C-alpha cells in the first residue's frame, strides 16, 4: 500500500471542523441543556430521541450489571457511568457498514449494533448463550454481524487492529469507515504510537476515538502524559484532531459524523479526544476512594450527560415526565427479561475447552481432552462434572 504524498491543505476555518489544535473544546450543549448559540446541529426528532433512549438504556444496563456483580451473580464488571454520551453519540454517527474496535467502556456499542441484551448478559455470566463461549472475562463482548470486534484485555492492542482493518478497507476499495476506541491510558501504549503512525502514513479511513475519562485505574491523565492535551498528539502523525466535550452527546455525534464523512471521502483519519469522566471505579474490583477526591467526582456529576441531554429535549418540548416514566419502565422490563433469559442458559459444553484454538482441534488437543475425560469418568463416574 503506497503512502500517499501529502499536499498542504488550508486549515479549515470553522471551529467545529477537525484541526490539529490544542486545548479548544467542542461543545454543543450548555450545562443547563440549552444549545450554544449557532451550535445546534438540528438533528431530526427521531435521531434525538433515539440518542436519549440509548443513553438511558446504557445507564440502566450498567447499573443493573454492577448490581448483579455485587450480588455475586457475575464475576466482574467495568462500569461506564458518566460516559454514556461518548459511546452512544459516536456509534450513532457511524453507518451500519462501519466497524467498531472497542475498548473496555464501549460495550453499549455492541447493543446499539444489535447484540441482544440477553446475549450481552450471558457474556458477563460466561455460559452457553455467550458468543465467546465463556472464554473471556466479563465486558469482552463480540458481535460480528454488527461489525463489533471482541477485544482482548491488553491495553492499546486494538488500535493497530483498527488501523489494519482500515488499511484493508482501503485496499479493497470499500466505503466502510473504522472506528477505533481507546482510553487515556492507552495513549502510552506501543500500539498507540505504532497504530497512529501507520494510520497517518497510509491515510486510512479511520476515526480514532479516545475517551479521556481522566483515570487509568488509579493514574490520572496528568501523570499519563506531559502533553498539553491528548488531541494534540495526533499532529505528530499528520492527523487532524479535535477535543470534544464527551458528556455532550450532540457534540460527540457531530464530531464523529464529520470525521467519518472525511474518512469516507478518502481524506484520511481523524483523532477525537472525548473529554469525560469515569465516575465509578475502574472496575468492580477497584476502590477509587483510595486515590482520588470525592469533590472531583461531585463536580463531574453536575455535568451528567444524561441530565444535560434530557434538559435539552425538554426545552425543545420533545420530552416530559410521562415519557420518562414510560421509557424507564420499558427498559426495566427489557433488562429484567434479559437477565432472566441469560441466567436460564446452561453451562458451557466441556468440549468448548479445546474447540476454536484452531479451525480443527489438533491430535494433541483431542488427546489431552480425552485424558481429562477419562480421569473424571474413572474417579467420579461422571463427565462433565
Amino acid at each position, binding site marked *: 500500500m503506497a503512502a500517499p504524498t501529502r499536499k498542504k491543505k488550508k486549515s479549515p476555518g470553522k471551529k467545529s471542523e477537525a484541526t490539529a489544535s490544542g486545548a479548544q473544546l467542542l461543545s454543543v450543549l450548555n450545562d443547563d441543556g440549552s444549545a450554544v448559540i449557532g451550535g445546534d446541529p438540528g438533528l431530526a426528532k427521531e435521531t434525538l430521541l433515539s440518542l436519549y433512549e440509548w443513553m438511558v438504556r446504557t445507564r440502566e444496563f450498567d447499573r443493573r450489571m454492577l448490581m448483579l456483580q455485587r450480588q455475586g451473580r457475575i464475576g466482574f464488571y467495568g462500569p461506564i457511568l458518566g460516559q454514556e454520551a461518548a459511546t452512544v453519540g459516536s456509534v450513532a454517527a457511524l453507518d451500519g457498514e462501519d466497524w467498531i474496535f472497542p475498548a473496555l467502556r464501549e460495550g453499549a456499542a455492541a447493543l446499539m449494533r444489535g447484540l441482544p441484551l440477553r446475549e450481552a448478559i450471558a457474556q458477563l455470566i460466561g455460559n452457553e448463550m455467550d458468543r*465467546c463461549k465463556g472464554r473471556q472475562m466479563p465486558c469482552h463482548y463480540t458481535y*460480528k454481524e454488527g461489525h463489533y470486534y*471482541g477485544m482482548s484485555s491488553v491495553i492499546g492492542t486494538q488500535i*493497530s487492529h483498527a488501523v489494519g482493518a482500515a488499511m484493508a478497507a482501503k485496499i479493497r476499495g470499500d466505503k466502510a469507515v473504522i472506528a477505533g476506541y481507546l482510553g487515556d491510558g492507552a495513549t502510552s501504549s506501543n500500539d498507540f504510537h505504532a497504530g497512529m503512525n*501507520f494510520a497517518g502514513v497510509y491515510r486510512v479511513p479511520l476515526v480514532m476515538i479516545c475517551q479521556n475519562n481522566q483515570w487509568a485505574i488509579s493514574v490520572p491523565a496528568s501523570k499519563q502524559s506531559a502533553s498539553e492535551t491528548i488531541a494534540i498528539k495526533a499532529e505528530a502523525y499528520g492527523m487532524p484532531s479535535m477535543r470534544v466535550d464527551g458528556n455532550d452527546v450532540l457534540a460527540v455525534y457531530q464530531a464523529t459524523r464529520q470525521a467519518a464523512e472525511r474518512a469516507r471521502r478518502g481524506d484520511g483519519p481523524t483523532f477525537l479526544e472525548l473529554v469525560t469522566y469515569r465516575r465509578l471505579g475502574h472496575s468492580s474490583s477497584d476502590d477509587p476512594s483510595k486515590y482520588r477526591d470525592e469533590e472531583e467526582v461531585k463536580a463531574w456529576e453536575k455535568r451528567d450527560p444524561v441530565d444535560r441531554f434530557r434538559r435539552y429535549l425538554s426545552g425543545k418540548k420533545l420530552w416530559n415526565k410521562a415519557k420518562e416514566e414510560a421509557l424507564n419502565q420499558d427498559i426495566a422490563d427489557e433488562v429484567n427479561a434479559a437477565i432472566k433469559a441469560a441466567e436460564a442458559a446452561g453451562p458451557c459444553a466441556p468440549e468448548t475447552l479445546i474447540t476454536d*484454538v*484452531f479451525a480443527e482441534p489438533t*491430535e494433541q488437543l483431542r488427546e489431552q481432552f480425552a485424558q481429562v475425560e477419562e480421569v473424571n469418568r474413572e474417579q467420579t463416574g461422571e463427565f462433565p462434572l
Partner: protein
Amino acid sequence: MSTMTLLEAANKAMQHEMANDERVVVFGEDVGLKGGVFGTTQGLQNEFGDDRCFDTPLSECGILGTAVGMALYGLRPIAEIQFLDFIYPGFDQIVSEAAKMRYRSGGEYTCPMVIRSPYGGGIRGGHYHSQSSEAYFCHTPGLKVVIPSTPADTKGLLIASIRDEDPVMFLEPKRIYRTAKGEVPDGEHVVPLGKGRVVREGSDCTIVAYGAMVPLVEKAALEAEKQGKSMEIIDPRSLVPLDEELILESVKKTGRCVIVHEAPRTCGYGGEIAAIIAEKAIEYLEGPIARVTGFDTPFPYALENLYMPDVRRVMSGIAKTFNW
C-alpha cells in the same frame, strides 16, 4: 519442475498465491521495490502493485498489529519480519492477539495470516541476526509453527500456510536460503501442515531435525553409514501441529533417537520431542535419547562455530544412544 533455491521457492509461493487470491497481501520493512533484505519478495510489487506488496514503517508492533486487523477484515496478510530476532516488539500482537482471536471470540473472528521471518545462525550475524526462537511460538496455543528445509517444501508449506484458516509462523532457515537447491513443482504445490517427511530411511537410529539442521544431519548420516550405522532422518516440517505418529513409528523401529536443533537446549523443542517419545515409546528404546542443540547462552558472534551443532557433535550424539 524447476530447479531453484529455498529463497526463490518462498518467492514463487507468494507469487502463486497473490495471483491465485486477491486477498493475499505482502508487507514489511523493505519488501517493496528492494524486494526484501534477502530478496524473498523480489518482483512482487512490480507484478501486483503497491496495494498488494508494500513497505511499512519500521515497527514490528505496527506490522503485526495491522496484520491482525487486515486478517479480521478479510484479507490474507503475509507479514514479513526482517529477522526473527526483531520480532519481540510485536510479540504481544502474536501471542495475545493473533493466537487468541478465534478462541476468545468463540470462533466469530479469526486471524488467517502468515508471519514470515528468516531465523537461525551460521551467517556471522551475531546475537541479533541469528536466533532460533521457535519454542516461544510453539508454547503459545493458537499458533502454527512451520519450518521448511528444502525448496520444494518451502513452496508447498508456504502455500498451505497462506491458505490456512489460522495464524502461521513461517520460519525460514536463512543459512540455507541459497545453499539449499532442488527441484520444485511448477504451479500448484501444497504440502499439508502437520505431516512430517522421512528424509532418509534407516534402521538403527532416528534423527529428528528441522530447518538448516536437516542438511547437516544428512552429512552426519553418511558418516554414520561408514561406521556401519543406518540412520533414519525425520523432518517434522511443522512443529505445531506435530506429526507425532511419524516420529514414534520411526523410533519404535530404530529404538534410538537423536534430536538436533540450533535453539538453546533448555525448554527447546527437542525437550518436547524427547518427552513424547518417553511417554509413548519408552519400551522400544534401546538407549538414552540424545539432544544436540545450541547453548543456553545468548547467540555468540566470534564463537558461532562452537555454538552451532556440527557433524562432529551430531556424531557424538549418535554415539551416546549406542554406548551408555
